[in-house]
């Protein structure tokens, strides 16, 4: 159990907040018999999930609003540029 929690916690650092969410959801059925160490990983997984999500969403908002204003830079950091 501790191995799974630990692995998912490290994987989440590679810009994968949903893995942290899965980490928590995976342990929901076992919520009554978790030791403190696992709880520690799950707590910080949740915090990490919210932190990463907030940063990503904020960036997405900033990018979508300013994409056209940034000119050539805006186009260069885009993978596909929508028509219109």
């Amino acid at each position, binding site marked *: 159990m501790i191995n799974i929690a630990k692995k998912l916690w490290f994987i989440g650092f590679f810009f994968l907040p949903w893995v942290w969410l899965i980490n928590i959801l995976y342990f929901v059925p076992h919520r009554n018999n978790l030791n403190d160490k696992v709880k520690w990983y799950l707590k910080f997984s949740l915090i990490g999930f919210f932190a990463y999500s907030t940063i990503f969403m904020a960036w997405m908002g900033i990018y979508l609003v300013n994409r056209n204003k940034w000119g*050539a830079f805006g186009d260069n950091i885009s993978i596909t540029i929508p*028509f*219109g």
Partner: protein
Amino acid sequence: MRFKNVLVLLLLLVFSVINSEPSAPATISDNIYTTLYSSYPCTKIMTSDGQFGCSSKHGGNSGILYLIDDDESYNNYFSYSQQKDIIVVLDTNYFNSTSVLNLHNKSKIEGIIVLTDTKKTYPYSPDSRYPNKIYGLYPNSNLEWNPNADGFTYFSFPFPIFAIDNQTSVAIRNVSKHNRDGQYPAWGAELDSFMQGAINSETCLRRGFCEPVGGQSIWSSFSSKIDKEKEIILVMLPFDTTAFFRDLSIGADQSSFATVTLLSVIKSLAAVDRSSWNKEVVFAFWNAERWGYVGSEYFINDLLNFQCKTYNSDKSKCIDPPRADLAFQTQINFTKISTIIELNQIGRAQLDKNLGKYSLYLHTAGTKTSSVTDILDQVASSYENSTITFKPTTQTELPPSSSMSFLKKTNKIPVVVITDHDYKYSNPYYGYEQDDNENVLGSTLNDIVYILSTFIDRIAGGNNNITIDKNFINILYPCFTSSITCFNILMKTYPLNEVPNFYSSVFGTSLTTTLSPYETKLIHRLLYSITQYNSTLTNCTSDNDCPSSLCYSGQCVSSNTHLHNALSLGFDFDTSKNVWKIVNSSYPIFTESNWDYTALKVFKIGNSTTEIWFLVSGLIELLVSIGLILYVKKFLSNRYKLL
């Protein structure tokens, strides 16, 4: 086990029989929609700091048809439009910036279909009051040459606008009247003209979503090679046209009447003895002039500044900077241009009731113009039965014309611009699709051709009796003003659209891959054949069989006729990134958006009760099917242990 196989085979057989039924319809959408093929969309143009024109949503805008053909229906629209998505069917009289902007600002609108079955009852131009003002010779002028203009072309609309041809208009008007009576099924339409470009030229060029407006100018001479020591008489005109719906840019008075005149003049001069001519005569048809005198500016710039860095092997072409034809450099000396004669709008000569003649006006600039106009007066007055007279203008400024590009460089050349207006345009439909064959005076054409041919012969040093080629004019005139289908044998292709349309279109995808519309190719080919000096005895079946010449009726023909790029000097092609870039935005920066396709489709709409019944019966069908499948599955698994 054997029974199971038999059952499966039986099922397969049943399915294959159902699917291979021969009378099966192609698709559901074919049954729902009827595509109207004679539809002409409003497209989008980008400038250096914005955009104008129209675009639909991605996938199209749709709604129920609502006809606006009188003030009552116009006023009712504002309350009606609250409830539904509406495609407005607009009588041509309501197509102007006041009524459309009012609809757009005060109510919801999904799209507009403009009818063409009736004619506008008032003079109207969607262009500006001084076309090309900031690119001309007098950017701060207070004159208004085009008084009927409301600048409609230069607004940007977030919904599609389409025009449809005469016949379709009658049908659409009828079904919209049927809608107005409240009968069901009602008629709706889907307008799809999604434009890829947006924001401005710089952005859309960088993204590759648009291309510069431009094309190919055409110039020609009777001489096989122009003597660089001789003086040049330049007879020219801007041949491209514009209209709000660019597929309908007939521009009969705007350009095509003058194009017919000049081609006919060249045709009649081709038949005379030109051995006494002591000057070179060059005929030029400038393209993309409506977009800031792009064609003439580019040609003059090449004459004055062009230097080739890398030639191809036989020095006939330049590779860097790319030019497919270097004849302009080897033959034309800018300082030798001694006279410029420009035919501008000449299709609506004004009737002078005192003289009983139609008058054309001479706008002059530069030095010693009287020496030129005197000859023209002499020619006109010595022609006894002439219905045409020439008058000097009362204006001191030139009207918008290609000559301005030359006068920007030098004021030493005498310039004569011939028009049908003294000051304000006599053309009531400048830049509007009604500038067609009914908007010009075909009866004046023969006399104008005769006088101008004689005039050009005289100033070149000849003294010939001119005979005009009436057969040629009788084919050319209707071809260029009502239906461009008369030179199919010469062109060996059929035009996509029967409406003559001299819109310059876009330049092309790079400096070397240029694009010429049918009309440009037609003028080039006609001019090439008229000014031919030599037909070799080489037989040919296509142009590919003739090196550096063209194939006409089975023989290779040579002519001193050339195409020249008409592209704004503000653009250059970035070969490393493979996109167009803007190098100087003080030049005209017009780009046209790309699009995949445009379509106008109509369909039937049931009333709300029918629509609810359709939904309910569909849901019932779905539930019954699910029930049936479950039952069959259960039955089969119980009885045969199959599934």
